[in-house]
């Protein structure tokens, strides 16, 4: 999932300004791949352990000492829409833990902060990413 210029981004109740991009990546943490005695090809594949990570890219336009620290946890919420209108707006949320906060500084882009977070499931079985209709909420 990739969201460009999300409307409002909050983490643990704090608003993150000037977020330009949020990427939600899903990857297998453990893969099951099994063969039988009947031939060359696997007959079972499964992914019993998955990781969901988010990258939040933020333009830093002024001094900012309130950088999230690795290990901090809270609810990450942002809203997205396929076009710049209220129609089909979606509220995306998840419980997340900060893994890293890094800065890249260049003349062309200025200061860019990338925050990486791990999404946490409520019970291990439920998808940690919740997507609901945002309706008219800000």
């Amino acid at each position, binding site marked *: 999932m990739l969201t460009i210029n999300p409307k409002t981004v909050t983490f643990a109740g704090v608003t993150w300004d000037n977020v330009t991009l949020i990427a939600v990546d899903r990857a297998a943490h*453990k893969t*099951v791949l*099994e*063969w*039988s*005695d*009947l031939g060359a090809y*696997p*007959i*079972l594949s*499964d*992914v*019993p*352990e998955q990781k969901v990570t988010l990258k939040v890219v933020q333009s830093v336009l002024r001094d900012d000492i309130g950088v999230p620290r690795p290990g901090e946890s809270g609810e990450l919420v942002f809203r997205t829409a396929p076009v710049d209108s209220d129609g089909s707006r979606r509220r995306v949320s998840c419980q997340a833990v900060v893994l890293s906060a890094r800065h890249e500084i260049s003349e062309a882009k200025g200061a860019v902060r990338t925050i990486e977070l791990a999404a946490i499931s409520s019970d291990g*079985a439920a998808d940690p990413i919740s997507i609901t209709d945002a309706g008219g909420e800000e």
Partner: protein
Amino acid sequence: MSSSFKGKNLFGSGPHRFALGKQGSLVLSNIALGVFGPGSVPLGLLELDVLVTGRLVSQSESGLWFFRDAIVAELVHPPTAGTLIDLHGRTWTGMSLITYQEADRTDRGRVRSMAYTAVFRRFQDPP
């Protein structure tokens, strides 16, 4: 065809493979026998071991326990012999299930599954 032990399809819920254990002579060194010297003594041929490695698969937690319990139920003392047949019809008679070792965790993805290794032995002197 499906594999079987004593006519039961114990491993058919998921992929599994058959292999033979180490074959040859059981050789003891002279030192182990209390004789000072570098030699060794062959005591006879090793008993035949057949290893089945695979993964039990079910759509549910209870279904997986059903398959696990069915295998554990074959672990008895003294071990009782039966016929083991692999996926190609190769048959070993007089085999006893002696160990069943599971992996460190149940895998819960699209399906519930458990990796395992089961060892069957043909005892030279059946208990």
